[in-house]
């Protein structure tokens, strides 16, 4: 038995071999100087579709994104952009001055931490205390009904 199964036998047994699909929850992160604590899903979509260019304090919004093939970006494309991967790439190409593409989770976290006005999307289990996590529609990741969850 594992330690977990010793403590809660049926839970782990129930998970068994079948539980290979782990739900992904995507956190919206901003730099620590950003005074926003949350926004609606509709406003978030505007930010990520380049329809909003500035934060309420006037600073320019800089998107920090990863490759569309990563699980968190797949969730974002499905929930925020409602478009195919090719359309998404074309959108990014048309707004290249407002977006930075990074190649790892670590790079994304460091970029959001370091760039004032930055906003990024990251698997919730990767967040650290050097960035702020925004609520979406009043909910944080892993709360019931959180907007940016996928599989």
């Amino acid at each position, binding site marked *: 038995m594992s330690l977990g199964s*010793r403590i809660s036998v049926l839970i*782990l047994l*129930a998970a068994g071999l079948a539980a290979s699909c*782990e739900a992904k929850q995507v*956190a919206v992160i901003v730099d620590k100087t950003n005074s926003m604590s949350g926004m609606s899903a509709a406003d978030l979509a505007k930010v990520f579709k380049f329809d909003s260019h500035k934060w309420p304090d006037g600073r320019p919004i800089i998107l920090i994104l990863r490759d569309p093939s990563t699980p968190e970006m797949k969730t974002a494309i499905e929930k925020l952009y409602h478009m195919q991967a090719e359309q998404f790439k074309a959108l990014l190409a048309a707004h290249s001055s407002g977006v930075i593409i990074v190649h790892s989770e670590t790079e994304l976290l460091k970029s959001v931490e370091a760039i004032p006005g930055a906003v990024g999307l990251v698997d919730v289990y990767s967040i650290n205390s050097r960035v702020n996590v925004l609520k979406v529609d009043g909910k944080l990741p892993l709360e019931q009904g959180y907007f940016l969850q996928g599989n």
Partner: protein
Amino acid sequence: MRSIKVSILAALVFSFGTFGVFGPRAFAHDTPTGMHISTKSPQAHAFFEKAMAKMEMLHTADGLENFRKAVQADPQFALGHIFLTFFSQDPTEQVAEREKALATRASAGPEEKLIIDWLANASQAKWVPAIQAMNEALTSYPNDKHLHWLAGWWLQLDQNQSQRAVAMFERVMQIDPKFADAYNEAAYCYARQGDLDKAFADIKRYTELVPNEPNPQDSFAEISRMAGRFDDALTHYRMSLKIDPTFHESQLGLGDTYALMGDQQKARAEYAKAIATGSPVQKVTWSLQLAASYVREGDLAGADKAFTAVVEQAHAKDFANLEAEAYRSMSLYQLESAASLNLLAKAEAVLHEDHKVPQSLLNQELASVLRTRVERALVANNQAANNQAVNNSADNAAKNNELAKATLKQLQTLAEANDADGIITSALHGAAGAVALSVGDFADAVNHFEADESNAISMRSLITAYDKNGQQGNARRLAAKLAALNVPLIEQAVVVPEFRKQRAALAAKTNPALDPRGKYR
């Protein structure tokens, strides 16, 4: 008596029984690969060391007892309090110890403070600050094996994140290649991901590291059973019992394995031995598994009799959650929906009475009862729709629809009030998926069922939802998984054997060469 091999230093401390001669720096947790502990009490430090050594060997009751002694020796020992919060199975103790950990946090060291922030927030379902503190600790103390082990454990059991958990256990192996439980936990993670080669490699290493402990053999047996290697499972369970005849989990494992192999008489004989040696709560819990063996062989009258006996035992001991579970288990295999709904009503009534059982356990069982009611109401609806000859079938269908919707709402309210509870959340997804499937919202059904993919009933429905949603590849893959699902649960008993029969019949129909009856045609 089971041997403790990992923390020799802690054992030495106890064999001498002279805490005073060891200063805090003498303990294993203050090594470069250990966790700094700030208690000023050598006794508390020694008890903490022993507790960790016990937990590493999965002697959880002994481990908990030593954590309790540690905080008795030093009530200001914040890390001891938070470890009790984390490892205790008693919700009352969890809350009380969390409050003590927070009250004494100021006296803790920097790493301890991060661990307290992580686990105290997690125990209150404040996930974002919990994860932030955990990651901060992991980044700041990359060579602390116990920290990574704890993180792996939390990610695996509390968060169902086996991919992330396995990375933690592999880091533990890098730091200390002889940290036995890291191999055990990683093996379970790999098994859950379906990577059986890696699972068996790690579990083999685990048996080599602690050859005189029963648990490595028990784990080897359980993973063998999960993989469908039943004979190997029986062999390793027997090896475990040979090492320690009092390791009752292996005795239960023999019963479970025979049950999954289809030999219900042998299963019941092995279950009976386990039940005879179990604690009062184990006796009732394991009797549920014995009763399920009648369901597996299609003897529903025998199952009713056995589950009714469990109801009486649980009622006599005031194990209300288990009494309700027995009613719910009976409801799952009833052919008539009215009988099933009647049993679920009894289960709910039991849970609403006044009991000594922790409310969290009652709530979890209530969630399972409610999700089953949603499913059975929708089945009743289908039965009514298929039986047009019955008077008032349209009225009955409307009533059942209303019942399903009202029950789903009740379950949503329960889930909102118990945000941290994974069992309740999974039950909600299972029920919501069933409702979405019934109204033809297949994409929504897929999303919900995927969040409850460990439940055999949801797996079966998810295959349908995938198929209707145009995801035939996913449907095929999941069907193969469901057919290979070997877990000793009532849901598996009511779903998987029948699913295998249907699958075999379908295969024979589409490929007559596979039909054993073909040679007679």
